């Protein structure tokens, strides 16, 4: 287990460079991924073939949109028309989560530059879904959601186009549609789910997302761009977002959780080991000093240890976190400071009290070794083996402290640690059953939690193994 973790910790930084982690905090880097998608293999449980994400890149990239551009001049007025086409094959048993279209456009200062979007279905139907005007010029992208619920999107046009199309095909009537999807001031109060209609079998069942059946086959986009200067141009890409993604799914920003899961391992290991080493070594030395020198020093160290054991550490750490928004290194330092003395000090002191009486100490004393020399050259080496077990057993405590603070939103804000993901997931209600996610967003919480447990259990077993070897009482029984 530990070998696997260390291998992971070494391999991840080599194969996944650090800029992956930096782009973690850049929402623009993840627009091609579906949001809140379960892992791909989870379709084993549902027994359905769930949709993957289909990408249709820009014209000029492999597999991209086909493009035809014509520019012509009629009585001193230039007209430019660009037609972009692409198609994708859809064979899944469930509807995609979202359909989006992105366009870069070049257009002059003439009003009326227009985009027309047509949606072709496998059954030969073509729906003129919406008309829009480009709002930004290249290199920025105009984003159009075909399924999004926001008013800014042209989806209201999408709903109306679908309505007209369904009425034309005698699937529904005006009165039925208006009863199903009431509008107040032109705004849908309970908007239809566009993808279940754009991609459903054309009969009465298409009106209800629960009964609508997926029509499998080739779908196509046809985009017409009409501009009024000779330099006008347009290019488009489209993404049909699936409901499953990768090995570990995605979070609310469409980020691939596998990246964070893999990066969580080296971060947790480094944090846990560094913290455990520092705090156990300091505690060991203090414990040894306390046991070796005795007297007032002993009393002082022991009372401090008692005090440290009793104060409510986590609440105080949380207070510090709120006030100072610490980075991961500072968090580590604060945690070590709060663990200068503790249970280890007491254990080491009791061992030193036994070692003190042994003959080799007496021998060292008899040839005139100083007290400090005896402590560091004779006693500490004797005590060290016991501290290995304690270090291994302290690593989980540090990993969990970091995870707890990150969960509460007080950890390092940039690093995607396991606790940080859990905190994000909790903040986005991943642990509540909703209609869309009757089992919560289980992938979002399960894997980071499993990662933490796996790592800490590995160290607990290591510590237990050390304990068995070093603690003769346990071994002989």
């Amino acid at each position, binding site marked *: 287990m530990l070998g696997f973790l260390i291998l992971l910790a070494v391999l991840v930084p080599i194969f996944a460079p650090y800029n992956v982690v930096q782009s973690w905090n850049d929402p623009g880097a993840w627009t091609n991924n579906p949001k809140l998608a379960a892992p791909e293999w989870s379709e084993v449980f549902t027994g359905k073939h769930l949709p993957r994400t289909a990408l249709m890149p820009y014209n000029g990239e492999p597999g991209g949109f086909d493009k035809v551009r014509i520019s012509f001049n009629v009585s001193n007025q230039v007209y430019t028309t660009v037609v972009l086409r692409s198609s994708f094959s859809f064979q899944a048993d469930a509807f995609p989560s979202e359909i989006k279209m992105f366009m870069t456009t070049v257009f002059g200062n003439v009003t009326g530059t227009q985009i027309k979007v047509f949606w072709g279905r496998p059954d030969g139907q073509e729906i003129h879904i919406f008309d829009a005007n480009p709002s930004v010029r290249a290199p920025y992208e105009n984003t159009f959601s075909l399924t999004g619920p926001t008013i800014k999107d042209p989806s209201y046009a999408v709903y109306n186009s679908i309505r007209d199309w369904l009425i034309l095909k005698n699937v529904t009537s005006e009165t039925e549609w208006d009863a199903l999807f009431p509008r107040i001031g032109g705004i849908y109060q309970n908007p239809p789910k566009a993808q279940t209609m754009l991609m459903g079998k054309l009969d009465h069942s298409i009106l209800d997302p629960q009964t609508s059946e997926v029509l499998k086959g080739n779908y196509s986009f046809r985009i017409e761009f009409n501009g009024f200067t000779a330099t006008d141009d347009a290019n488009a890409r489209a993404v049909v977002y699936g409901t499953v993604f990768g090995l570990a799914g995605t979070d609310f920003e469409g980020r691939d959780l596998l990246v964070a899961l893999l990066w969580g391992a080296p971060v947790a290991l480094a944090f846990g080991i560094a913290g455990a080493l520092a705090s156990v070594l300091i505690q060991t030395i203090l414990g040894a000093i306390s046991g070796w020198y005795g007297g007032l020093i002993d009393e002082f160290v022991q009372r401090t240890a008692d005090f440290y054991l009793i104060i*409510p550490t986590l609440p105080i750490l949380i207070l*510090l976190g709120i*006030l100072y928004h610490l980075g991961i290194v500072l968090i580590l330092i604060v945690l070590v400071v709060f663990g200068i003395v503790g249970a280890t000090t007491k254990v080491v002191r009791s061992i030193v009290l036994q070692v003190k009486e042994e003959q080799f100490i007496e021998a060292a004393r008899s040839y005139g070794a100083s007290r400090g020399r005896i402590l560091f050259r004779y006693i500490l080496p004797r005590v060290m083996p016991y501290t290995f077990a304690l270090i291994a057993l302290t690593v989980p405590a540090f990993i969990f402290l970091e995870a707890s603070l990150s969960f509460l*939103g007080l950890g390092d804000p940039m690093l995607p640690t396991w606790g940080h993901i859990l905190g994000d997931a909790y903040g986005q209600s991943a642990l509540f059953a909703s209609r869309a996610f009757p089992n919560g967003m289980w992938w979002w919480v399960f894997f980071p939690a499993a990662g933490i447990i796996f790592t800490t259990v590995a160290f*607990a077993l290591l510590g237990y193994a050390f304990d068995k070897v070093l603690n003769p009482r346990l071994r002989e029984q």
Partner: protein
Amino acid sequence: MGVVRHLTRRAVFLAVTFVIAIYVTVVIANGFGRIDAILKAQIYQDLKQQYARNPAFNRLPPEEQARQFNITYNATVEAQGLNEPFLPKTVRYTVSALLLNLGRATQLHSSDGSPAVSAIIFERLPRSLVLFTVANVVAAVVGIWLGLWMARKALSPFDRGMTVLSVTTFVVPPWVYGILFILVFGFGLKVAPSGGLTSVPPPPPAPLLAAFPPLIAVGLAVAGYLANKHLRTKYRAIGYGVMAAGAAVLVAWVLTPYDYFKDMEWHMVLPAAAVAFSVFGSWSYTTRNLVLQVMDEDFVFAARARGLKERDVLSKYVLRAASPPIVTSLALTLAAAWTGAIITETVFNYPGLGELFFEAISLQDAPVVIGLTTVYALLLVVTVFLLDLTYSLLDPRIKALRR
């Protein structure tokens, strides 16, 4: 007089610790004086803006403007107590925190609308107390029982398996198990509610008495069992009767309609299970190791030689001698469980003290955070003191001093 002297010393030490802990909290919560500076700057800014909008003020000569501004500024700062030097102020805050005079919350309020921190805290305190007491008692009973059993079958596959299980479960805090339990039992198997205090909407209210039958049932069963251990065979019917009464109470309770308290208890199952699962390992592992150490002692050998049953040897001789160290080594583990409640309750959306802490952090409600830290420190100190008390009652050597 050993016990009294020992307890007095501990009480004094714990009281001093408590005071220092509260003082540290107050100093940190006030940002080492930084918060005062921020507040002063804010008052300065607010006054400047207020005066800039005042035409009458702007007509005054500049010296007069400055004079008036300073008078108002100083008066406001004085009124909010920001001129008080930092040190005496923290002392004052500490004293009022120690007197449980916790002030008013800035954002949160109790369910009946009171902004007093003590009202908010004491509304939620019983919920946390019940949840964590039940969970820890269950964990302790199960853990000690398992530990004894493991020690009896030392080195068997059962012992090895349970040791590994204990060692690996107790390093993981309850909230992580909470997450897994919600996924597995709440969502996957749907056997228990995944969170909250009650269902939404809550079932019909019930008198407070309705909350106790399960406790009474368990109490009767334990009483009957213990009585039978000390009664001769022909009187055992009494014990069985008491146990049957317990069972009857339980059945009657199950048959009564589903009320508010049943719903509440039902919602406590998963959080309590998560806490118990992460705590029982330390009880069983410690019990096993200490019992194995004590089993080598001569008096145990003597007890066996007298032909006592293995069961009696274990419960009357071994466990008795091993219990003081078990209690000490676990005193602080148990006390630390209080602060672990912060995330456990948040995960289960259980409106106790921990969840309150989380809310107070999210809303940056400093008086509530300070008040809660005070209550946590108090709970820790009281728990440790109670354990000290138990220890001194259990330890035959301290008892001997009293006689």
